[in-house]
């Protein structure tokens, strides 16, 4: 299944590249969705079933929809930026990013090994994740609840920020 993995990863990377380089924000958003789909497939191949589903549901289904709504709302056109931006800012940015990328990859030499074949049964299922979250001995219970509070706050914050004056 390595081939499948490489295929979907390539899809994700190319989509990512489109995200950062295209002028039109809609194109960018759609490309990002495609990237998410590729990643979701990767998750499945890595036995992260629950995460894959969540990725589609939340990221592609909710967040990107929100993004597209906002783009439409603001009625943004294209950037107007040249295709090949050779300004100082672009060069520095790409160079720095490149350095980060190269550095990361170079530092990962020690990770060159194969996965073991056996994975525990039911690894990555929703049951497994649920047990990890909600078991009485789990350290993740409190963060879980806090995150829900966080989401509430975010919602309220978004509403307060964006509402019209009355």
């Amino acid at each position, binding site marked *: 299944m390595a081939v499948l993995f490489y295929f979907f990863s390539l899809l994700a990377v190319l989509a990512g590249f489109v995200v950062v380089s295209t002028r039109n924000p809609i194109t960018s958003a759609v490309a990002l969705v495609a990237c998410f789909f590729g990643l979701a497939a990767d998750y499945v191949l890595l036995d992260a079933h629950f995460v894959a589903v969540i990725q589609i549901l939340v990221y592609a289904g*909710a967040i990107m929809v929100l993004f597209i709504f906002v783009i439409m709302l603001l009625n943004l056109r294209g950037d107007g930026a040249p295709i090949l931006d050779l300004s100082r*800012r672009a060069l520095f940015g790409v160079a720095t*990013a490149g350095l980060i990328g190269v550095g990361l990859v170079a530092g990962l030499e020690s990770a060159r090994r194969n996965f073991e074949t056996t994975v525990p049964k039911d690894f990555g299922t929703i049951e497994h994740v649920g047990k990890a979250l909600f078991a009485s001995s789990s350290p993740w219970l409190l963060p879980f609840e806090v995150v829900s509070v966080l989401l509430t706050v975010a*919602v309220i914050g978004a509403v307060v920020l964006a509402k019209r004056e009355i």
Partner: protein
Amino acid sequence: MDQVGLFPVLAVSAVLFATGVAGVLTRRNALIVFMSVELMLNAVNLSFVGFARDFAARGVQNAIDGHVFTVFVMAVAAAEAAVGLALVILLFRNRVTVDLDELDRLKG
């Protein structure tokens, strides 16, 4: 089926991350910068999942924590997106632009 090693997973993650950084630093449109940030977060998620699988295969206890963390990252990303987009809307309402180069009032 032959599984892919840890290294390719992390390499892909690194490339995606670097791409996201390039987008954040380069683009002028605020929304596209936002989307690049999401790209970075996803790269991180991929790396979490990869490690989780590796640990689980080697028998480390609580290897599932990688997935748990991914869930949290997504939740936070959602919250961040909501608030951030609200700010963009507010910004657009005041300045009729989302061009980051024009937002230099703190210049000094």
